[in-house]
């Protein structure tokens, strides 16, 4: 019996490492883009993350198609094999991994020794013993992928029953490819670097907004506009990413934070105008002693504001509404709340009274 030695692939090649790094990088970028997009409320990033992953997966599959077609076109080779030794590994499942040392003896090729691991059902273990002959199958160009045929054809079954094989000389070559930890480390590095790249690129937006307020919210009071004899004060509350003035209780708390402590120069109660946007509250306080139509900003119908904004966004015919603004004043005597929305399809607004009841609509034209 002529023998040969099979040389299975050893470890991960540089190409494998590069591919692992690239895959890890794409996964890292995709995940980070999705998470950062959710944090910043940026829909393009939220969409781009999964889309990049899907596109990469498709490309990866397409790139591997020729190799798979080439390998698939080659008919596997069936051969007899002798079990030189075997070692059953214990497990909870009924299919237990068994390590086989085999001498494979193909009909028109030299025999070779190989070590493989294959799951065997516990009820079939007694069929596999050292010295037994069985049927195996493997791709002719990759003999290290040898697998035991559990249900051979009658012809091969008869051949195995009547065959006497001798063990080939030399050690059994381990067929299980050992990628080692290098591939895992490189892939993990790719994930981390990909995620870090996204965070670095968007660091200004991620960390810039709330640099001054670590808790994601900043309140600044600005004294401004000196004219001749009157000083008007303005209070501003801005929220960091992830928070909205429409969150439950957020607007009321923001107004209270400006009025409760005296409003940074105002009288702490009366306001000329209140302007609210998604993450911004601005209160223009009435100067002390001024004869202007002011109102108590705490009297706004806070509980109605989210519903009014939603109504303005959805019922006024503005396509893809992007921004909204609420302004409250009582120039005409009664408190008037105007909510404007703007988007790709133009702008529109509605007006509500001091109780939050809609009194006028100006749909998009």
């Amino acid at each position, binding site marked *: 019996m002529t023998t040969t030695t099979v040389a299975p692939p050893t470890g991960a090649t540089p190409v494998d490492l590069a591919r692992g790094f690239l895959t890890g990088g794409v996964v890292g970028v995709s995940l980070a883009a999705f998470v950062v997009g959710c944090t910043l409320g940026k829909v393009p990033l939220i969409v781009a993350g999964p889309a990049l992953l899907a596109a990469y997966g498709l490309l990866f599959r397409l790139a591997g198609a020729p190799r798979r077609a080439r390998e*698939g*076109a080659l008919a596997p080779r069936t051969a007899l094999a002798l079990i030189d030794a075997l070692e059953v590994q214990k497990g909870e499942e*009924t299919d237990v991994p068994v390590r086989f040392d085999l001498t494979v003896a193909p009909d028109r090729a030299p025999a070779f020794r190989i070590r493989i691991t294959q799951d065997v059902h516990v009820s079939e273990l007694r069929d596999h013993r050292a010295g037994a002959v069985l049927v195996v199958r493997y791709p002719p160009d990759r003999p290290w992928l040898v697998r035991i045929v559990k249900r*051979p054809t*009658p012809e091969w079954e008869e051949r195995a029953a009547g065959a006497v094989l001798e063990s080939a000389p030399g050690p059994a070559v381990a067929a299980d490819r050992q990628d080692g930890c290098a591939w895992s480390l490189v892939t993990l590095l790719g994930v981390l670097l990909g995620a870090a790249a996204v965070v670095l690129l968007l660091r200004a937006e991620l960390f810039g907004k709330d640099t001054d307020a670590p808790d994601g919210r900043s309140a600044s009071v600005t004294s401004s506009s000196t004219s001749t004899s009157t000083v008007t004060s303005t209070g501003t509350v801005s929220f960091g990413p992830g928070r909205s003035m429409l969150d439950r209780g957020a607007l009321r708390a923001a107004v209270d934070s400006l009025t409760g402590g005296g409003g940074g120069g105002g009288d702490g109660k009366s306001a000329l105008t209140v302007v609210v946007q998604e993450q911004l509250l601005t209160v223009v306080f009435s100067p002390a002693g001024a004869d202007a139509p002011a109102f108590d900003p705490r009297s706004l119908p806070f509980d109605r504001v989210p519903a009014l904004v939603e109504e303005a966004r959805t019922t006024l015919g503005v*396509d*893809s509404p*992007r921004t909204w603004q609420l302004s409250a004043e009582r120039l005409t005597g009664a408190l008037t709340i105007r909510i404007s929305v703007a988007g790709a399809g133009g702008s529109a607004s509605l007006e509500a009274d001091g109780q939050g009841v809609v009194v006028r609509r100006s749909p998009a034209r």
Partner: protein
Amino acid sequence: MGWHGYLALWCAVLGAVALVGYGRSLAGVTRAQRMVRVRGRIERVREPRHGGSRRGGIAVVVSYREPSSGAEVTVTNDGERGELITAAWTGREIGVSYPRGRPHDYRFSDDPEAGGRGLGWPNAALLLIYVGLVVVASVDWGWPWALVGVCGPWALVGLCYLPGNVRDARHRREQLASMVAVPGRIVAVLRDVSTDAEGSTSTTITPVVAFTTREGAAVTAHCDSGVPDPAGSYGRELTVHYPEDDPARFVLDHAARQRSVRSDVAVNVVFLVLVAAAAVVGVVLL
């Protein structure tokens, strides 16, 4: 880019996938259409070992004639070979298919006439486009559009299929009534224990019944239902009912099947009424 931009992108990408898929199907070049399909015959059935595994189905030896060379080919269901053969007898015809030029990559199917046009991907793409449109309509115009968009088409499809379902139920009822009863025996109980990623184990017990038809075919089959206390059923004698034209569709719980088939039409109608009512509610709330 607003919501509608993303919807347009979604529809464009999936529309391209659907177009390519339907084009390939029309041109006859999908993987399913390029398969060579032949009729195979089970030559030998290997009786399952008591305590063995259900994976891979019942071990059989199948022969078929290679269309190009006319040679007789013998194969087995070793490894991943398409549909599991869970009922087998010598002489049973089953489908064998393989990619052109790759007979070693064969697959089995229970139905010898089985064969698709490879429209799975394009149909899935169309479904996703439809889902996208319903979601955007619901966001833009209010949630009643979700009811209209989902339940409306379902109700229409259900209505179209109702006559067919009624005919099927009647056919099943007639088939159950005309089934032949023969004695059978549990010749093995297969046991598979597997562990999932979280470490919890699950055990699958599959009794194997053997019975002989009036025509003399010795049938061996997995029993996925109808055997009380399956773990302790080894050696149990029971009565097997089977339709004369296809013993693979045997039943062990004949009376229970007859009861359930009577309620099939009622379940269909109730489901259709519920879906239609939901669609009407959606229209009213618009």
